[in-house]
């Protein structure tokens, strides 16, 4: 009898943990009321953040979380937004759409008025459906998929996927040493991020008559063995390998290419950012890797130097592009809220309307583009120039 009871208990525990995923959406209606009550009681902006701080994409989420903390502390120390301080809370979504929705609901229960997030594309799309419903202002630091900002209440700091793909093709075509190389592509056909960049890269490369000789893919379920894809590229005599993928897989590709004695020029996009942070990774393999990223931690303007130093003091490593995106996101919110006279006692929906209106009017000089400025379009897209970075002596260096 005892055994039976035990087994039922264990099974019940498991089932309940699975069901918990669906249950999170239920208490929505009641939380909205409590959120507005709470926010009117306290004179502080409640800004929520969502992103993966555990799981495969944890590097991105934790950098975003820490960068926002730095920005919030700076803004609060300088007197807050319109004289009101910021309260900030960050929830983990493990790069999972369902958990992101749960995190969003948790934050709404807490009284969130503005959302900085989410960090990765698929959860961001899921959460944007919710923010649309609630008319909550959403600014994603790094959700690159097109649909992340499909609604007018959502904006982004980073480039969109198509933008990254076509910008990469532009860069390669404009670089004398790269433009005549035969190009191979390996992309992840199971993520929106990678396919989005891939499709726009191929389209743009066609226009610019770049020579793509091999185009292969993998899926999340087969992301360990790349020997066939690499061999295909090698057999096609490709001299440049375009990798619109995340650094976890990219680090494996670099190692496997080295193992088979294949050494093309590797060209990545922002997902490649972080490859030097892989523990125990032989960084000499990444020497000469190009990546198109909007942020360079080695830039020497005052804003960047200050941010990089504070970030390094706090976390012990140099921020990646995601941290910089998030830092600028907070300053964008500050600039817009001040221009539109937004105060914490306004309702979530009123704040959103004011922010939407103000977002397209500001010019932000942040760490991403300094000394140039970023502006936003009503579609939620930023206008800014990408920078190509090359890895030299285990550091990201601006490529000319």
């Amino acid at each position, binding site marked *: 009898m005892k055994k039976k009871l035990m087994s039922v208990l264990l099974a019940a525990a498991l089932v309940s943990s699975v069901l918990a995923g669906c249950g999170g959406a239920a208490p929505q209606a009641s939380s909205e009321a409590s959120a507005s009550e709470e926010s009117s009681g306290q004179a502080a902006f409640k800004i929520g953040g969502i992103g993966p701080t555990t799981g495969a994409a944890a590097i991105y989420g934790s950098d975003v979380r820490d960068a926002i903390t730095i920005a919030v502390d700076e803004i609060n120390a300088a007197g807050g937004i319109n004289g009101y301080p910021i309260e900030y809370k960050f929830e983990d979504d493990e790069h999972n759409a369902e958990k992101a929705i749960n995190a969003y609901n948790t934050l709404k229960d807490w009284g969130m008025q503005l959302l900085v997030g989410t960090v990765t594309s698929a959860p961001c799309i899921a959460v944007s459906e919710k923010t649309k419903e609630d008319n909550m202002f959403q600014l994603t630091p790094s959700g690159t998929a097109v649909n992340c900002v499909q609604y007018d209440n959502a904006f982004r700091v980073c480039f969109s996927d198509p933008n990254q793909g076509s910008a990469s093709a532009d860069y390669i075509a404009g670089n004398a040493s790269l433009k005549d190389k035969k190009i191979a592509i390996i992309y992840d056909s199971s993520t929106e991020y990678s396919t989005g960049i891939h499709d726009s890269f191929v389209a743009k490369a066609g226009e610019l008559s770049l020579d793509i000789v091999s185009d292969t893919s993998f899926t999340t379920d087969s992301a360990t063995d790349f020997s*066939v894809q690499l061999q295909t590229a090698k057999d096609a005599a490709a001299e440049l390998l375009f990798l619109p993928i995340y650094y976890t897989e990219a680090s494996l590709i670099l190692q496997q290419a080295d*193992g088979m004695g294949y050494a093309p020029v590797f060209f990545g996009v922002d997902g490649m950012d972080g490859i030097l942070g892989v523990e125990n990774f032989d960084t000499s393999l990444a020497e000469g890797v190009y990546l198109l990223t909007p942020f360079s931690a080695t830039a020497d303007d005052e804003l960047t130097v200050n941010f990089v130093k504070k970030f390094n003091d706090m976390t012990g490593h140099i921020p990646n592009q995601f941290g910089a995106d998030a830092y600028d996101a907070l300053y964008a919110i500050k600039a817009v809220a001040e221009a539109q006279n937004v105060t914490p006692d306004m309702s979530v929906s009123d704040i959103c309307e004011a922010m939407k209106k103000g977002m397209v009017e500001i010019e932000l000089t942040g760490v991403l583009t300094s000394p140039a400025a970023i502006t936003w379009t009503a579609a939620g897209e930023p206008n800014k120039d990408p920078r190509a970075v090359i890895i030299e002596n285990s550091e990201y260096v601006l490529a000319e």
Partner: protein
Amino acid sequence: MLNFLTYLVNGISLGSIYAIIALGYTMVYGIAKMLNFAHGDVIMIGSYLIYTFMVTGGVNPLLSVLLAMVCCTVLGIVTEKVAYKPLRGASSSLAVLITAIGVSYLLQNLALLIFTANPKSFSPVITWEGISLFDGELRIQGVTIVTIITSLIVLVCLQLFINRTRQGQAMIAVSEDKGAAALMGINVNNTISLTFAIGSGLAAVAGALLCSAYPNLTPYTGAMPGIKAFVAAVLGGIGSIPGAMIGGLTLGVIESLSKRYISTQLADAIVFSILIIVLLVRPTGLLGKKIQEKV
């Protein structure tokens, strides 16, 4: 032709990894008649242990693998005693299966807590470069050769152990009929614990080879290879030790060749379709025994 050979070799090296993982799956299933879905995660834990000993502790690679084998063996016995044994008398075998999935999540989340999610780059245990044929046109990596040899050694040892020793004979008896085995004076609990001990010890070896071939270590490293190896074990005939080896190699070669000659996107779909076809024609797998149901 040479081109084809290269892809064949790639397939065999992938398959040899599946094979050594599948050996652990099939061993536990064959004796205890339960699917230990946590096997892939024991592999992951084993790899982390080796990483910790080798990279953080500076221990010799071979010694690290041995130490990890010991730790994994203990882990295997403890999980069996704590999680699976209390359920052995349960009316449905589903309870054990669900618990195994629970253990799998438990191990993943433990690893997430202890080792964090940041990927670690595994230093290969095998540093041998391998051999080059046809003026370097065809390279067989050292880790592939070592994996195949290790799998073969494990295969032979397991066969000898099961067929030639008293403990092995006891395992066969337990797998055929637990009640009758107990009546014959066999300690069923100890025998099943021993099975788990061997299976988990093998997992540490599989972890060393898996991460030497694909040196990226995260808490989810063991999950997908574990599932693929399970498929390999079913393909070869689950419970059959030589079947696991053949199933693993077949799966790897099919995967590699379909990626090359058909489509990289469809590779997984093709692999699993072949599994379905094989099971339709031979429900017990390639080398599985025909089981006659008694009425």
